[in-house]
């Protein structure tokens, strides 16, 4: 059982034993995912997307921005007038939609994962400090978090993008600016409740430093909830990035992103439905896979939250 394995994370063992325990926990987790059908399906689809993004130049039939107007609006291969040379058809300037979808996976995955990792780290550090030490810092951070919660996420991201201008790192900044709050609130709450438990008292009685207690005692006990939240947030971030790209304020123009591809096709819904539909479908499938995996992970790691 994974919970039993997690319990064996003995705190005073040498580094080697700890590494072995983590490795064992990890292989236990992999086995649990393998046994959980929806988590496994989600993981496999997600892995396929990652491979697609990594090997985009090899897998994509054409460069993402190559196209000629003479080949514009070719329908998908299975429709009348379609050609196997362009499986999912071409857009208004004759670019191959399949190739652009394959390249577009890079933006979505990078932005999704990176923005969640940054938010998670910021939220984890501030939440743990805030929940452990309390005091004025906790008050200030909690009030600030409350204030940020009063802004709709997308509006906030649009505002930050308008100030910073388009670009990959600006996009990460815009998405992270508010989303660390979710992690902060979770970690703070969990830290406050863990702090009163006996094992923390015991560690304190042994004379461990506050830093050692936070990182060695409390964090290992709350990290699973954080991982679950992080996984479920990735899908949301990917959708938000696509929404920003759809509004024309995502990564730089020229880099294929699914949101802007959907936007490209908006003027041609009557004549060329595939231009908007296909990239959106790729986006939906990716988010579906991440959510399947995330909810599976939640069932495994945090059964308290399991939806019956």
């Amino acid at each position: 059982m994974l919970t039993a394995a997690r319990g064996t994370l003995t705190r005073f063992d040498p580094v080697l034993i700890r590494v072995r325990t983590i490795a064992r926990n990890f292989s236990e987790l992999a086995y649990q995912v393998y046994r959980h059908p929806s988590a496994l399906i989600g993981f496999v689809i997600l892995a396929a997307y990652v491979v697609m993004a990594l090997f985009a130049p090899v897998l994509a039939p054409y460069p993402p921005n190559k196209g000629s107007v003479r080949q514009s609006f070719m329908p998908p291969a299975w429709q009348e007038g379609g050609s196997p040379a362009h499986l999912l058809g071409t857009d208004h300037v004759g670019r191959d939609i399949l190739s652009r979808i394959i390249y577009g996976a890079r933006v979505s995955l990078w932005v999704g994962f990176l923005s969640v990792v940054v938010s998670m780290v910021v939220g984890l550090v501030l939440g743990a400090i805030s929940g452990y030490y309390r005091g004025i810092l906790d008050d200030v951070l909690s009030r600030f978090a409350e204030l940020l919660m009063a802004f709709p996420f997308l509006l906030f991201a649009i505002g930050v993008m308008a100030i910073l201008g388009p670009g990959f790192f600006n996009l990460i900044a815009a998405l992270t600016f508010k989303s660390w709050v979710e992690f902060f609130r979770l970690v703070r709450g969990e830290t406050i409740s863990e702090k009163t438990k006996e094992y923390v008292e015991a560690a304190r009685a042994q004379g461990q430093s506050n830093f050692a207690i936070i990182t060695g005692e409390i964090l290992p006990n709350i990290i699973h909830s954080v991982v679950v939240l992080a996984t479920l947030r990735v899908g949301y971030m990917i959708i938000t990035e696509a929404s920003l790209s759809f509004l024309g304020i995502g990564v730089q123009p020229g880099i294929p992103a699914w949101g802007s591809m959907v936007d490209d096709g908006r003027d041609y819904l009557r004549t060329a439905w595939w231009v908007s539909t296909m990239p959106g479908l790729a986006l939906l499938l990716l988010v579906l896979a991440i959510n399947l995996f995330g909810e599976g992970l939640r069932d495994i790691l945090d059964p308290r939250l399991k939806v019956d």
Partner: protein
Amino acid sequence: MRGVRVLERILSTIPIVFGVAVIVFCVMRFTPGDPIDVMMGREGHVSQEQIDALRREFGLDKPIHVQLYLFLSRAVRGDLGNSLTKHRPVSTLIRERLPATVELALGALVFSLVLAIPIGVISAVRQYSFVDRASMAAAFLGISMPAFWLGIICIIVFSVRLGILPSYGRLPYGLEPARVTGLYVLDSILTGNFSSLLAALRHLFLPSITLGAAMAAIVARVMRSSMLEVLRQDYVMLARAKGLTEWAVITRHALVNALIPTVTVVGIQTGVLLGGNMIVETIFSWPGIGRLAVDAIFNRDYPLVQGVVMVYALTFVLANLAVDILYTYINPKIKL
């Protein structure tokens, strides 16, 4: 006692609203390119005297804390300044656009609740049946669906292919009912204008589905799980043992209690409905404040951005307040 607590809770929102106003003001003021530069950029070449005159006119020559004080004291009186691009008072622009946004949010809310609550209840009562599995699969799809794509699919299917529903605007030109509330559906009913009512409902349909789909999915899932939880409680067993019909057990005993977590989710999602309407208003050319906000941000129309963001934040805070207060009435065990 409850009245005092409600009042305390209402008062506790004041610092948040105040904080939001200060943040919005600071972000706008410390952004590169001040409003006068933006205005001058539009007007072409101007002299330094003209720039100074405009600075004085907008109060930008005063120290920053005085500007903040002026901004806050005017905002309290409902004066949010003039739009730089539209040259009209921001409060007037918001007043004109707000009913469209409220109507859309209400449409989405009604759509999602009418769909999600029965689905959640049926799924829980018939756990693991085909209906349960199918609706939970659909709900899962709903939470993973990007709103802008769903909107486009709705347009392709219902407007382009089937040609049965309009894909943009609130009403065809000339059909607007006499203004009472600004909500076309309500105004058409109040003035007995049924051709407008039908047209308004037809225009509202696709945007409401697009905006409300994610909320419907979340509410259905929460409703199902809280209903399952409640159905296992002793008092439900007791109600059954008393010989009540299954219908009475579900509606009178289980549903009321299962609604409590749903109310929280609905409150939080109301904020999300407002946050998501920028996308939906863009797709369906819906003339609400979402589209106004996006345009204002793109045009760096600072007073307008400030005003719209304040309205959004205020609505968000009020939605949370309403949930908290409602909570004490449906669940007297909970104290504010």
